[in-house]
């Protein structure tokens, strides 16, 4: 113990300087050249910042495509998931309520067309995406709320489908914020 304590303290101090200081700098410096300069990339529309590129935000108006449910209401300074178990009765009732609400706002839509991502909360409560099916199923509502033809809205959704990585790996999805920004300029 005795012959170890001094080297232990000295080595700890060296590690603090190097891994808290030098290592952090080694990452911080090149990050200044990254998009957003390491501060986070924002998205502009109509000359103002309307969001962050990577972060989902709350969309509940009928004229917008809705984001997924979020238990933290899309607060990006206190993110989190529901942590509800798959058989929890309260949770299942909540999902049922979301389905009912969705059907009320989307007349003419079959229940079987609603994909589960639209009625379940995401892991961090900040999911920027919905599934492709989740976008298609909202086309009718958005089109009628904006009095634009469904075909045009659907074409816009098609433009916003993000393919799997290299077309091979992962999921297809739609970024809700980007879609809604472009929706604003659709005539």
């Amino acid at each position, binding site marked *: 113990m005795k012959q*170890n304590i001094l*080297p*232990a303290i000295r*080595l*700890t101090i060296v*590690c603090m300087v190097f*891994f*808290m200081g030098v290592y952090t700098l080694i*990452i*911080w410096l090149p*990050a200044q050249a*990254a*998009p*957003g300069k*390491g*501060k*986070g990339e924002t998205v502009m*529309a109509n000359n103002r*910042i*309307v*969001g*962050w590129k*990577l*972060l989902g*935000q709350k*969309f509940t*108006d009928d004229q*917008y495509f809705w984001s997924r449910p979020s238990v933290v209401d*899309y607060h990006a*300074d*206190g*993110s*989190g998931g529901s*942590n*509800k*178990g*798959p*058989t*929890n009765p309260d*949770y299942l009732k909540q*999902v049922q309520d979301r389905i009912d609400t969705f059907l009320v706002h989307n007349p003419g839509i079959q*229940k*079987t067309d*609603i*994909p*589960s991502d639209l009625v379940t*909360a*995401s892991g*961090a409560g*900040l*999911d920027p*995406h919905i599934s492709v099916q*989740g976008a298609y199923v909202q086309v009718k509502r958005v089109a009628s709320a904006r009095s634009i033809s469904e075909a045009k809205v659907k074409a816009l959704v098609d433009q916003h489908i993000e393919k*799997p*990585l290299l077309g*091979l*790996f*992962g*999921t297809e999805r739609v970024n809700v*914020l980007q879609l809604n920004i472009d929706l604003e300029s659709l005539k």
Partner: protein
Amino acid sequence: MLCIDKARKILNQSQVIMTTEIAGIIFMYVLTVALAIPLGRYIGRVYEGDKTWLDKILHPLDKIFFKLSGINPAKEMNWKQHLMALLTINLVWFILSMLILMNMSWLPLNPDGNPSMPADLAFNTTVSFVSNTNLQHYSGETGVSYLGQLTLMLFQFISAATGMAACVAVFMAMKERTTENLGNFYNFFVKSCTRILLPLAIVVALILAFNGTPMNFEGKAQYISMQGDTVHVSRGPAAAMIAIKQLGTNGGGYYGPNSAHPLENPNYLTNIVENISIILIPIAMVFALGYIIKRRRFAWMVFGVMTLGFFLLLFNAVYNEMHGNPMIGQMGISQPLGSMEGKEVRFGPAASAYWEVTTTVTSNGSVNAMHDSFTPLAGMSALLGMMVNSFYGGVGVGYLNFYIFIIIAVFISGLMVGRTPEFLGKKIEAKEMKIAALIALLHPLLILAGTALASYLFAHNPSAYADWLNNPGNHGFSEMLYEFTSSSANNGSGFEGLGDNTPFWNIACGTVMLLARFLPIIGPVAIAGILAKKKYIPESAGTLKTDTNTFGVMVFAVIFIVAALSFFPALTLGPIAEFFGMK
């Protein structure tokens, strides 16, 4: 007719998704192994002191470390000296961490004005990070300052390196020779930090930073959303920490929801990079073993057993998650992706289940989806991964756990054929077996006794502890079982619905983490040290071969029996009962 068309379209579409999702996880695994084999050779060379291509830069750096610390890295140590050095420096870290976490509020680098931790939470967090567990009873955005985050990041380097150094001492003891000298702890420790963790961390952190993960010191940002809500965004030096959290099988996230957070894990590419980082070094360590003791076949046997176990858990998890939650299926909506509660669309259920299994078999504990919301049997895969805790396992310590199972398997095989059990030319006798048996039983004891205590308290006073559980019934039991399993496996993931920031959970889990970290390091190092001193007996016709498939099956059987027999009753009360209750 239209209906059929539509159904076919959806089916087609979901098949495409399924294929790309499955392709994604196969790609990840193949790439991981392809990287781990050369990395293993590199790691072997580093510890043996052979030449490597990074020497030019890193020789001088190591020299500075040793010079400033007054350490002679060439001084040989026996197993007891190794352990003394390891335990002493860990004690220093414990004190350092307690001091910082309890005083963060007034120390520098606190732009968001986050508070200091109370003693019980600081104890839990300190033990958690010193022990390489990274169980988090606080939330990153609101619970620690940037200085706190950087301190925790420091522990992600040095606690990982501690495990690796202990593991290398065991490697050195397994060589064909009789010796007391197992190399120098500080030498292995510093080289693990500077030559293995650091270069990889720099690469991963830069990939993350260039994909949008924050790396700044400026405090929260603010914006007004399209619907007019004011939103605050937490940021900070995240990229640096996330890289090492994955590589060192630490798992402690920068943000509360860990790598499910879009800033912590921005897209499918970063998901691949982070997920590979989780199991890269644990697999590479196995190949490093083959290099150091010059027994490639033995390393492949170890790799084979680990991989078999990993695949079994993986199939179960991926199948169940992609299948969706039957209770939601009954509501009449479609589940084209699968079970989506607690998951992110950019990853989907397959990549989430793959992450779930990799993070629990390796004692990493970072998550990209909420484990509490997984379907029951997929949740059981996570539990089993941590209960076995040696299918790849944590950096360094995973192999130490596996070593215990090998010793037991050698002993049982020896008894079965009526010979003195020998392992790599060394006789295994009563003393080593006693240590091995105690360490093998420690893990079930800590988990089951802890869960029993918590269940007892909850059952006898459900109103006082009502805030503990986020879910009723069997799933609530699983939440408690998971918390103790995660603590004892030094994993750090959670069924996060558990209201765990209370004195009971902070202290109980802290104690479990402490015991489950250091005893399973002391045990294998002691066994290896004792064996190394024994006379080396050259192989003969009567020697039990430990690099064969037969022996691999034997080790797997030992693992299966120890894990299944000890934990099956608890699993029956938790996930299995929940599964059968669903229909």
